[in-house]
Structure formats: C-alpha cells, structure tokens
C-alpha cells in the first residue's frame, strides 16, 4: 500500500509537470507578444514593452519557463495583471466559494445517482431501467448553463420557489446559504447524475453476473445480504473512479453555472480574468484546477485500492 501510494504521488508530479508545460506553451509560445495580446493592437509600443518587462515576458522563453516552474513549486503564481497583487489569495477565496457549490452539487448527485444506478441494474432491461438510462443519457449531455436556464425559468421565475441569484446575503447562516446555492447546485447535479448512474449500473450488472454473486445466492444469503457483502464493494469501483474524474471536470461546467447565477466563485474569477486578458491570473487558475483534478483522481484511486484488494495489485504495478 505504501509503495502504491509513493508511486501514485510520483506520477502525480510528473503529470503536473507536463500539464504546466502545456499551459506554458499555450500562454507564452502561441502568441508572439504577450504584452500586445493583453493591451490590444492600438496600444503604443512603449506601454507594450513596459508591460512585457513587468510580466517578465520580455525574457527569453527558457528563462520564463524556469521561472514559471519554480513558481509552481513554491506556489507563487505571480501577480495579477489588473490588480498587481499576488494571485494566490484571490484564487484561494474563489476556490472556497466554488468548493461550497461543487460540494453541495456532489452531496445531491452521489447518493441519488448511485441509488438510481443500482435500481436500474437490478431491473435490467425493464421499464425502470430504460427510463433511468434514457434520462441519464439526455441530461448528462446538456451543458450546465442550459439546465441552469431551464431551472431559473421554471423554479425561479414561474414558481418563485428559490432565489435566482446565488450569492447569499452577508453573514447568512448555513441554511440560508444552502437555499441560495440549491438551484445552481441542482443545475450541476442534473448533468452529473447521468454519468454516475450509468457507471454504477454498468459496474453492478457486471458483478451481478459474476460467479461469486451466484455462489452467494446459492449458499442461501438473502438479496440484501448478497448486495451488502458481495456486490456493492465491487460494483462501486468504476463509480468511485468516475466521481474522482468528475470532481475535476466540475470546474469546467461551473464557469457557466456561476455566470448564469452570478455567483462569486472560481468560474466567475476565470471569466473576469479572461475578459480583462489577465493572463497570469488565468494561468494560475487553470493550474490550480488541474491540481484539484489530480488530487481528486488520486483520492479516488486510494478509495478503490481500499475497497478492492485486486485493484490494489493492479494499480500498484
């Protein structure tokens, strides 16, 4: 287990290194002149030069690359171009807000979609199964901001049940905060339901067909005993893996959701940075989200290894 963990963490650093290199290539090599990109075609050349000097983008590329990588190790992502303050605290605050929203979305999605997936697997090819699969296929393919729009129109405007803007008032208690976050979280939950439910269904069907499940039934265990002792532990392995991946990808969809509900999280910050061409802030945000994805998949692998000794051997090699 320890060896597995060490290997997995080493791999994480390799991936992070490659990821940071890709981001560096996109930001510093694709445009010929970073200062010009930020200030636009009509800015005087002196301002462009001054900005390049301030951002360090006038230095040769290898030197910039070393500096950015060193910054990544020391968690110093540089200064924002618009506010000239270090970007790390800004991103930290936005991450906390987004984590609340993403957390609520996951708390809603995970139990419901696992239950639906299990139900679909046990009613395989019957009407319940078909309905769950069809609903999952449909909703997981719609962009989050579209489900958000539909929710605002139906639940917010027509029925008037929930607030249509997600920022809770200052000093709101936990319950009020949840009330404000419920609709954006639902918009995301509806999208992730399909992925997780389908994974659970596929995993469960495979396990239900396995010999050891038949043995468990034959030796006289009740259905619920079989499910608890033999099926769940194995069936949920792919589910855990897909949840790990989804936690990282949540941050792609969260941008649209935060925009449409006007919520001050990571998505709005990234959008703010994009509109003002604040490339240092945007770069740092992308890297932080990449790190979140990697940590989430690592956590998922660890949970899988704990759930299933065979997976432990496989992942460890």
């Amino acid at each position, binding site marked *: 287990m320890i060896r597995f963990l060490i290997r997995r963490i080493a791999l994480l650093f390799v991936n992070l290194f490659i990821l940071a290199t*890709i981001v560096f290539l996109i930001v510093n090599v694709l445009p010929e002149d970073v200062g010009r990109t930020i200030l636009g075609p009509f800015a005087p050349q002196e301002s462009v030069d001054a900005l390049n000097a301030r951002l360090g983008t006038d230095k040769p590329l290898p030197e910039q690359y070393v500096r950015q990588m060193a910054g990544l190790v020391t968690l110093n992502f540089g200064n924002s171009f618009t506010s000239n303050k270090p970007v790390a605290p800004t991103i930290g605050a936005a991450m906390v807000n987004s984590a609340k929203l993403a957390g609520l979305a996951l708390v809603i999605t995970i139990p419901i979609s696992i239950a639906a997936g299990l139900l679909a697997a046990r009613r395989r090819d019957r009407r319940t199964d078909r309905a769950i699969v069809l609903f999952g296929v449909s909703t997981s*393919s719609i962009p989050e901001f579209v489900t958000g729009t539909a929710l605002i129109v139906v639940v917010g405007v027509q029925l008037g049940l929930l607030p249509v803007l997600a920022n809770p008032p200052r000093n709101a208690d936990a319950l009020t905060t949840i009330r404000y976050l419920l609709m954006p979280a639902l918009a995301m939950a509806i999208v992730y339901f399909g992925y997780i439910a389908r994974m659970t269904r596929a995993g469960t069907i495979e396990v239900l067909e396995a010999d050891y499940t038949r043995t468990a039934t034959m030796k006289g265990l009740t259905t619920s005993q079989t499910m608890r002792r033999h099926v769940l532990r194995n069936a949920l392995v792919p589910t855990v893996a897909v949840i790990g991946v989804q936690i990282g990808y949540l941050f792609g969809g969260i*941008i649209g959701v935060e925009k449409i509900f006007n919520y001050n999280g990571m998505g709005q910050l990234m959008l703010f940075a994009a509109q003002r061409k604040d490339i240092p802030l945007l770069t740092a945000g992308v890297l932080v989200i990449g790190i979140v994805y990697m940590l989430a998949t690592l956590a998922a692998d660890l949970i899988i290894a704990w759930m299933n000794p065979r997976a432990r051997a496989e992942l460890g090699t």
Partner: protein
Amino acid sequence: MPVRSDRAQARIETMRLLLRRPGFVIGSLVIIMWLVCAIAGSAITPHDPFDDFFAGQQPPSAEHLMGTDHLGRDVLSRVMVGSRDVFTVAPIAAIIGVVAGSILGLAMGYYRGPFDDVMSRIVEAFLALPVVLVALLTLVVLGSSTVVVILVVGILFTPIVARTVRSTVISERQLDYVTAAKLRGESGPFILIREIFPNVLPPIIVEMTVRFGYAIFTVATLSFLGVGIQPPSADWGLTISEKYTFMIAGVWWSTFFPALAIATTVIAINLVADALHTVMSE
C-alpha cells in the same frame, strides 16, 4: 434478386437493426429537422431573423410563437437560423478531433514502446483539464474567431479520442489476423491501414457521434462565456449569453427557447450515438 457483396449486406443489416430502435429514429428526425433549418436558413423562417421590425420583449403569441427579443427580433426565426452556426462549427471540430485522434491512437496502440509511453503521459496531462477551461485560456490568448474556435475544440478533442482508439487497437493487435499479416511480411503501415483500421472503425464512428454532441456542448458553453461564436450570429449559446439577464425580469422566452434548442439537439445526437454503440458492439 441482385447479388450483393457481403459488406453491403452487413451494412443493410446494421441499418435495419438501427431503424428498429426508437431512440435512433427519434434522434435522427430531430437532427434532420435542425439540418433543414440550417440549410434553408431565412428562406423558411416566419420572419426576418436579423431585422428588428417588431415591438421588443413580446411574450409568445400566435404571430410570434416564441415571442420577440429585446431588439424586437422574432425568437423562433432566430432559433431556426441559429442552427446554421451550430451545425457548421461543431461537426468540423468533431471531425478534426476524431481524425487527428484516430491517427494518433492507431500509431500509439500499434507501435507501443517509448513513443506510446511519452504520448500517453501527455494525453493523460491533457485529460486533467476540463476542455472548456483550456479552450477559454487558448481563445483569450489567440483571440476568438470561428476558425480558431473550431481548431481549438478539435485539437482539445484529439487526446480524448486518441485514448479511446489506442485501447481498441491494443486489444485488436493481439488477434490472429494481425499476427498472420506480420508473418506474411506486411509492413507496419499496411497492417495498420488495411488490417486494423477497418476493424476499429465501428468504435471510431461511435466516437464521432459522441464527439459531435460534445462539440455542440463545448461550443455552446464557449459562446455563452463570450469567447465562442461572435455577434451578430444567432448562435444558441451566444443568444442565451446576450439575454439571460432579462430572465429575472420575467422575460424568459428569448433565453428559454435557444436553451431548449441546444438541449434537443444534444439529446438527439446522444440517442443516435447510443443506438450506434449498442448495434455496432453486438
């Protein structure tokens, strides 16, 4: 009875199986409907989609089935015309991603070795980032235009497709027919193109439909974020981004119907993809 080749016979059989699936039929009909709107454009819209003749913010009525927007343009006409951008940008991006990804995946899966190891690491790193986010970063850096959007989405799909194709190729290359071709002394590229490629084509076709759906998803999101398709296009994602703030005041129709258009299109494509996947993997 005319004599048909085995391959044509198999194709007809696949088609028959597909037509028996309600998901495939409904999905295809919806896609065809949007395609007709995209091709015919303003020739079949009830009003001119770009001129603002009418009173603004009118709720749906017999004259304007989906109401009018804040500039007094007919929402239904704009939704119909908006399909044109969706059905050009998304398929081209999907094709770029699938072609590039298939070539990369075929090479990685067949040659393995250090090339595959290095490429797999890079693919893995790409997968750590949501496509929308990298696309946002790239479009900010490069400046947004339709061509750039297509290229960026296509390139970002490449690693995803490559990983899928690679894994199918790896299981194919262990089969006897590949060994036989090797023993016959065929060259690597010949085996890849003439032997392995036809056998991995079904999953690639499925991947193509799935990517098409995701391309619509991604481009719509990018347009909504303001870095995708640019005004004055009637693109659905862009329209929502222009009008969603009016929803709070109760003007829901100018946002809701484009949203519905995106939803129906993507669901239709996924129904088709799902049917193809089931039929082709049988």
